[in-house]
């Protein structure tokens, strides 16, 4: 699956949380209307050229399907692309964007009576916010509870918007903020201090228990939070099949630290076999592109699966990977955008 880039015009670019983030709305030309249909929770990949190089990053769509296509980008440490978008993007600019995709999806059940708990940390709110609004709009009998973790009140994305959502649907929507280092006067905004942990979950479920049986838990945050929270939910008898999670659509700082080893091997693409040297700092994808090959890729975030290939021999470590399941990994599949070599020799093929 390779995703085509479309040049879209920025219809609106507005700063959020005091300029630390930016919400960007795109004009979708009528001819692209069908291609730019999305489901709540999906993201787009944005491509930018900086210093002569192309970078791609994925951002969640923060509006429900049917409204304007909006992404919200938060500044991150060393985040070249995100910081570029937050600082420089303006209304009227053109940006290369892929169609929406992704498997972290909330499909509304209009006749269902479901209870959804949305757990987000930092910019993890972005897909969840689109999901919560979709539930309140398209599932008239369902409930949406947002539980958002941030460092302090200033960092909370969509704080006012979420308050309005709660007021408009006060009988079936609640919003809770957990602040890890609240500042003076943040007290009023915070439900609790600390992190979303087992204690917080216990209070949550007794304050706003789910209605009956059809309950879903949606988590979006750094991979470590997703793991911790899934484990805490498990301790409260929540079955794994009801937990849906996604890590941030871009590599988190700690994930990038996975180191590889210098390695040489061969790569097969479209029936041609080429010798390839990969340095310890490179992903397999970067090395292949540097060698002049044109392997498929899209999100460069381990999310879309476009860059999938298979190792016939040799080993690789993934910085992060959402697009493979354990079976794929066992069979030698790798996401080349995230895989760094872990053995001195390898034999890779894209023709799978």
């Amino acid at each position, binding site marked *: 699956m390779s995703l085509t880039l479309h040049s879209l015009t920025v219809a609106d670019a507005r700063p959020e949380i005091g300029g630390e983030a930016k919400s960007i709305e795109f004009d979708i030309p009528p001819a692209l209307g069908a291609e730019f249909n999305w489901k709540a929770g999906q993201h787009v990949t944005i491509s930018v050229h900086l210093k002569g190089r192309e970078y791609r990053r994925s951002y969640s769509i923060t509006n429900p399907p049917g409204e304007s296509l909006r992404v919200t980008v938060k500044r991150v440490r060393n985040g070249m692309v995100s910081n570029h978008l937050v600082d420089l993007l303006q209304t009227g600019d053109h940006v290369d964007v892929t169609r929406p995709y992704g498997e972290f999806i909330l499909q509304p059940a209009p*006749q*269902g*009576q479901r209870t959804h708990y949305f757990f987000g940390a930092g910019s993890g709110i972005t897909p969840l916010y689109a999901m919560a609004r979709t539930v309140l709009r398209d599932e008239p*009998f369902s409930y949406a509870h947002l539980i958002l973790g941030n460092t302090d009140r200033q960092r909370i994305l969509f704080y006012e918007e979420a308050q309005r959502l709660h007021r408009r649907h006060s009988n079936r929507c609640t919003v809770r903020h957990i602040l890890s280092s609240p500042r003076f006067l943040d007290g009023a905004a915070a439900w609790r201090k600390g992190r979303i942990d087992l204690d917080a979950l216990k209070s949550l*479920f*007794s304050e706003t*228990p*789910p*209605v*009956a*049986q*059809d*309950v879903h838990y949606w988590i979006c945050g750094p991979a470590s939070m997703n793991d911790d929270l899934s484990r805490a*939910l498990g*301790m*409260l*008898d*929540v*079955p794994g099949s009801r937990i849906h999670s996604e890590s941030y659509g871009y590599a988190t700082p700690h994930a990038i630290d996975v180191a590889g080893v210098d390695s040489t091997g061969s790569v097969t693409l479209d029936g041609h076999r080429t010798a390839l040297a990969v340095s310890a700092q490179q992903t397999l994808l970067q090395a292949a592109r540097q060698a002049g090959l044109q392997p498929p890729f899209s999100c460069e975030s381990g999310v879309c699966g476009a860059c999938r290939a298979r190792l016939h021999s040799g080993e690789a470590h993934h910085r992060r990977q959402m697009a493979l399941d354990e079976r794929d990994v066992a069979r030698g599949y790798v996401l080349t955008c995230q895989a760094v070599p872990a053995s001195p020799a390898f034999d890779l093929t894209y023709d799978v």
Partner: protein
Amino acid sequence: MSRMYHELPVDAYTSWEWYQREQDRIFSRVWRYAGFAEDISEPGQYISVQAGANNILIVMGRDHRLRAFHNICRHRGTQLLRATGKAQRAVTCPYHDWTYDLEGCLIAVPNAEREYPSGIDKSQLGLKAASVDIWRGMLFVHPDPPERSPSLAEWFGAVDPHLGPVQPAELTEIPAQRTSMEVKANWKILVENYVDVYHLSHLHSATLDMYDHAKAEYGWHGSHYAFWEPLVAMDGDRHDNGGRGGSGDHGAWVPMLFPGIGFATSDSEWSTYIITPLAPDLTRVESRTKRVSKSTWNSLWSEWPSTRGRPEGQKAKVGKKEAEGRDDPLASGNFIAEDNYVCEQQQKSMTSPFFEVGPAAQGESPVVNHQRVVLSFLK
């Protein structure tokens, strides 16, 4: 040729064959009432409900989520849990101690190595899932697993707007008003009596005379019946009090949802009247009542009579002198006793070879329609 009772053969009210068909096609296949939501209010609590042929267990996990399973051990079928109680994190069958977790997974088989030397695949022996959902603060169960059960909100969706403003979840139960009785009549006779508009001003001429039966509004919404009638206007328009809108807001809503799920509700009260067939000529009726909290109630009490009729013995269909002994239901002044009496008398007559039904009156059109609804499920 079998004798008919409007749309149904008389057999439908007297034979085990019909009883069994209704059990199979109706009571074992649709959403059944299981109680008020607060009947399971903390983790580990459970109740079990007989729904036609199915005994369904509802239990709350530590995540406060409800789960529903068929209350049948996967070993040799022993019922796992009795009516109500508190389970720990697991459910153990009393027979051979097979143990299931609250997801229904079989987690322990005692002495497995010795008893099953060639192994036992626990993953294939989980409890069978059923569905539980909540509507208007009441629990309902369905025998199919959640992915296959129909939507409860949709099942009651069309009739919901016709049930009055009260949300039972906001009321408090009056434990003293919880009753269970057995009536010697077919369940359909009880339902038909419930939806018979004609009898209100006759059988209940003395017990429900605070309502203006002539102004009753009623009709069917799918398989469900809705009924509303206002209070009789007295002393000017006295129930226009209290800033609660026009007099049309008050009175009684007395719907009968399918199958045999009756409610009686006013501005301040919600009663359930659950009809469960036990035999062709025997039916259990369980009733519970919730009311607005005491303080609110006190102020309302002076303005609006209850839907439950007059306090006992005030006034009766049959005067004290004509009464046939002290227990004459028609002298009881209690409209439920009046109803049960006529239902049982009617059931008795159905076994007589001379029984023949007369023409249905206007106010009996819901009676005939309920028979059609029953038929539609048996096709």
